Structure formats: structure tokens, C-alpha cells
């Protein structure tokens, strides 16, 4: 399948000399939800800016739907809806006017039914005649999403869409995103709420210091990099871990009532069987046990942590 967005050897150095992107290569498949993760200043917004035409690339090329973003910018850009991170709105316009403006700007004929559908889906319908300045932050965020969706894009960029949005609204927003995916829209999102990426994304890319350090199917990534933790709830209390168990690098928790064992699912052996055997030999009894899988957040933190 040809990717809907193809980024090749992309670099960006700002006028100040700051190198925001270094030789980025990335393909986005049609219809997927792609989560771009990275710490602040990693280059996420610069990358989105270049694809959308807001930032000039220093080197490399980008195609959107097979159209070069410079040579064939009209065709490329008309496929894209962009929701930037900052809340940039025309304060004195009404919700309806601003959404209609966006549709016109993208060259689409008037379609009040579509605008109505978008505003209703984002719970903005009863605010359609309100000036944007009177809306709350969460509503403004949704207005920006409405603007991006007003021209029926094939690709939607959501740059930190849920920053500053309350839990209830976030859920609603992800409902909309799921609906869009179901209708065939490709979605690229950046988020700091890694649990959201974990829940929503099909694939995950991690960017750090301007370089893509990993692009992986989310499930594969979780499995590949996933560390698991075995927690044993002891019947008695341990003051210290017996010498015989030293090779397992166990930790004591809950004032000696828990033994914690971290293991790697990638290894040929997890070491669980021998650990349990050695525990019995050492005369340590446990009442219960549980295993937990490390979250995407743990993986992310371990990837971008300074070496």
C-alpha cells in the first residue's frame, strides 16, 4: 500500500541555527491513527508544520496523497485538516462563521449540513452563534477541531488535542476521532497523555531531539519492549532478601510484605519458574501474586531518557 504521507530525508534548521529535525523518514498509512510521541522540543510541531505548509523545510521532501507539498501544494493541502497545539482563534467571530470561513478557505462549496453535523458531533451546536471569545478553553479547542473538519479532510493532524481539556470532554473527543477513523480519515496525533496514544493509536512513532528513534506497531512495541513485573504478596514479613535470591535482583515492598521481580518478556527464560523454586527452598511463602505489563509511558520514558 502506498503511504498517504511520505516524509523523506527531512531536515530543518531554524534561522537561529537550532536544528529541529535531522534526516527524518516516516511513512503514514492511509486510514491509521498514528501517535507521535516525544518530549517538549523534540520536533513534533516542526514536523507537522512542514507537512502542513507552515514551516519551510531545509532539506528533504514530503508527499501527501502522492502530491509534493511544494510543487503541488494545492492538492496536498486540501487533503489536510490541522488542529495546532496553541488555541489560535478569531475571538470576535461566531463559531458558525469561523467554521464556514475555514471551509471556504479550503475551496469547498458551502455546505451548511456538513458544518451542522461537525458542530453537533463536537457538542458545539448550541454555541454556533456565540462569539468565540465567550467560550471556555475546552470549547475553543473543539472549535479548532471543527474548523479543521469543516472542509472534510482525508488527513487530520491533532497536535496535543486534549491539552487542558477535562476528562469528560477528552472522552467525547476520542469518540469523534474513532468515528473519523471509521469513515476512513487518517489521523496523526501528538499527545502528552501517553495512555491516550496507548488506547487510540495503531502505530507509534517516537521522536527525540529531532530524530525519529522508533516507529512501531503499537501492539508489537508493547510486546517487544514490554517489561513485566511480578509482585508476590508474602504471608509473613521479610527484613532483607536472602543471599540465595540475589541473582534475581528482587526488591522489597510494602515494608517487607511484598517481593517485586522485574523480568523481560523478550528473554528466552523469564526466570519465574526458578525464582518460585528458590523461594520455596528459602522457605518464603506467599499468599498471592500478580503480574503487570509496563505501559507505553514507561517505554517512552526509557527511550528518551538521556543516556
Amino acid at each position: 500500500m502506498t503511504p498517504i504521507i511520505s516524509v523523506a530525508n527531512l531536515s530543518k534548521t531554524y534561522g537561529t541555527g537550532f536544528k529541529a529535525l535531522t534526516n527524518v523518514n516516516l511513512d503514514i498509512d492511509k486510514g491509521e491513527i498514528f501517535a507521535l510521541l516525544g518530549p517538549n522540543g523534540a520536533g513534533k510541531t516542526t514536523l507537522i508544520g512542514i507537512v502542513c505548509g507552515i514551516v519551510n523545510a531545509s532539506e528533504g521532501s514530503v508527499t501527501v496523497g502522492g502530491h509534493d507539498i511544494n510543487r503541488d501544494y494545492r492538492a496536498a493541502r486540501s487533503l489536510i485538516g490541522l488542529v495546532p497545539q496553541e488555541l489560535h482563534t478569531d475571538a470576535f467571530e461566531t463559531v458558525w462563521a469561523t467554521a464556514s470561513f475555514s471551509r471556504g478557505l479550503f475551496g469547498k462549496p458551502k455546505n451548511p449540513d456538513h458544518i451542522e453535523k461537525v458542530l453537533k458531533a463536537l457538542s458545539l451546536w448550541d454555541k454556533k452563534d456565540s462569539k468565540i471569545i465567550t467560550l471556555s478553553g475546552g470549547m475553543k479547542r473543539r472549535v479548532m477541531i471543527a474548523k479543521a473538519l469543516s472542509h472534510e479532510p482525508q488527513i487530520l493532524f491533532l497536535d496535543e488535542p486534549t491539552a487542558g481539556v477535562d476528562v469528560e470532554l477528552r472522552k467525547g473527543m476520542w469518540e469523534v476521532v474513532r468515528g473519523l477513523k471509521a469513515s476512513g480519515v487518517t489521523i496523526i496525533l501528538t499527545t502528552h497523555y501517553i495512555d491516550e496514544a496507548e488506547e487510540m493509536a495503531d502505530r507509534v512513532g517516537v521522536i527525540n531531539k529531532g530524530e525519529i528513534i522508533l516507529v512501531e506497531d503499537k501492539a508489537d512495541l508493547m510486546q517487544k519492549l514490554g517489561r513485566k513485573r511480578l509482585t508476590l504478596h508474602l504471608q509473613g514479613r521479610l527484613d532483607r532478601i536472602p543471599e540465595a535470591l540475589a541473582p534475581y535482583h528482587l526488591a522489597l515492598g510494602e515494608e517487607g510484605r511484598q517481593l517485586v521481580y522485574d523480568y523481560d518478556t523478550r528473554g528466552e527464560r523469564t526466570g519465574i519458574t526458578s525464582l518460585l523454586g528458590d523461594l520455596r527452598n528459602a522457605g518464603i511463602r506467599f499468599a498471592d501474586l500478580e503480574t503487570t505489563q509496563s505501559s507505553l509511558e514507561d517505554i517512552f520514558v526509557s527511550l528518551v531518557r538521556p543516556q
Partner: protein
Amino acid sequence: MNHRAIGAIYKFEMSRTWRTLLQSIVSPVVSTSLYFVVFGAAIGSRITEVEGVSYGTFIVPGLIMLSVLTQSIMNASFGIYFPKFVGTIYEILSAPVSFFEIVLGYVGAAATKSILLGLIILATAALFVPLHIHHPLWMIAFLVLTAVTFSLFGFIIGIWADGFEKLQMIPMLVVTPLTFLGGSFYSVNMLPPTWRGVALLNPVVYLISGFRWSFYEIADVSVAVSIGMTLAFLVICLIIVAWIFRTGYRLKR
């Protein structure tokens, strides 16, 4: 050509005009009326005719130009500066529009507004002084050409400005003095020869002279020179705008 985008920008800008009706239309009309009261009625009654027309009548074209020049610059510069300032420019930059279409939308709206304003001031003037326009078509042509040219100039200022101070600086410190000294209230021919030579370096002289000619057939410089100078300024502005958009100057990082 993305004509819907041009329409969207134009409509957006015009709706801003109606929203700020007091500031954008009423206040220039009031200040122009004050000029008529002060220069036309009070001082003008003590002045004999200038080149065959009464002083009150003589200053009408200059007063219209004064407003059209400053308002064109203010409208267009604010129109493009404001999205830059609040950040909504992201949408314009990411839309499938050419730079030419963006200019058409913004400059078209700014020029429309100042042409309307010029006509309103003309109508206001007719309440104070007797008016006769010899060449109405040329009058309209000068009005449109000036409004478009200076809206383009304002657009350039709006892109260049990185603060509200700079936005005000050119209209206040350059254009207003040039307009006052450009023969709004007098004929350049009234000046001593040396100062007349200096005055002819002021491009606004040519605009006002040509515009006044379309009213009364009196001119400080020949009409052809007036038109030529205005067109030259228009072309210079167009070249600068083309360069801005090719390089993304102050728009794209």
C-alpha cells in the same frame, strides 16, 4: 484559482469592517467634517480663491486622499498583522491558496473599504461646499488605483511589523506628514521655487494633483506624470509582495 478562498478572506475582512463601523467609517467622517469646519468655513472664508476655486472646495480632493491613504494602509496592515499576532495565520498558510489569492482577499477588502470611505467623505463634503466633478471616471480611477496601491503598501507593512508600534509607525510618521505636505491644503505652485522642488520629491503630491485634476481640471503636475507615478508605486509594491511570498519573509519560519 481558489475563488472560494478569496471570497472567504474578503468576506471575513469585510465583516470586520462592519463590526468596527464606528472606528472604521464614522471616525474618519467626523474628523473630515472638522477639517471642513476649520479650514473650509473658519479659515477658508478669509482666503481668496485658489486657482479659480474657493478654498473649501479646493481642499476636498486632498482631504479624501488623506483619508484614503491612511485608511488603506491601516486596514490592510491590520488585516494581515492581526492573524500573525493572534496566531490564526496558521490556517491561511496551511490552506490550498496561492499567495496571490491571499493578497487578493486582504488587499481587495482593504481597498473596498477605503474606496467606500472616500465616497462617503465626498458625499459629506458635498454638504459643506459646492462640488462639481469634471471627470468622474478619472476620479473613480484615481480613487481605486490609490486605494489598491496603498492597501498593498499597508499589507507589506503588516507583514513586516512585529509589534503594534511598528504597525502605527509608517502611517503616523511617514504617510500623514507626506500627505499634509503633499498639497492636501495648498497648491504646490504656491510654494517658493526651492520648496516646490523639494515638494516634487514627495510621491503623494502626484496622487493628490491627479485626483484634484479629475475634479477641477487644475493640477500641480501633468496628469500623465500623476498616473505614471501612481502606477510605478503600485508596481514596486507588487514586486515587494511577490518577493515576500516567494521567500516566506516574516510569515514562514
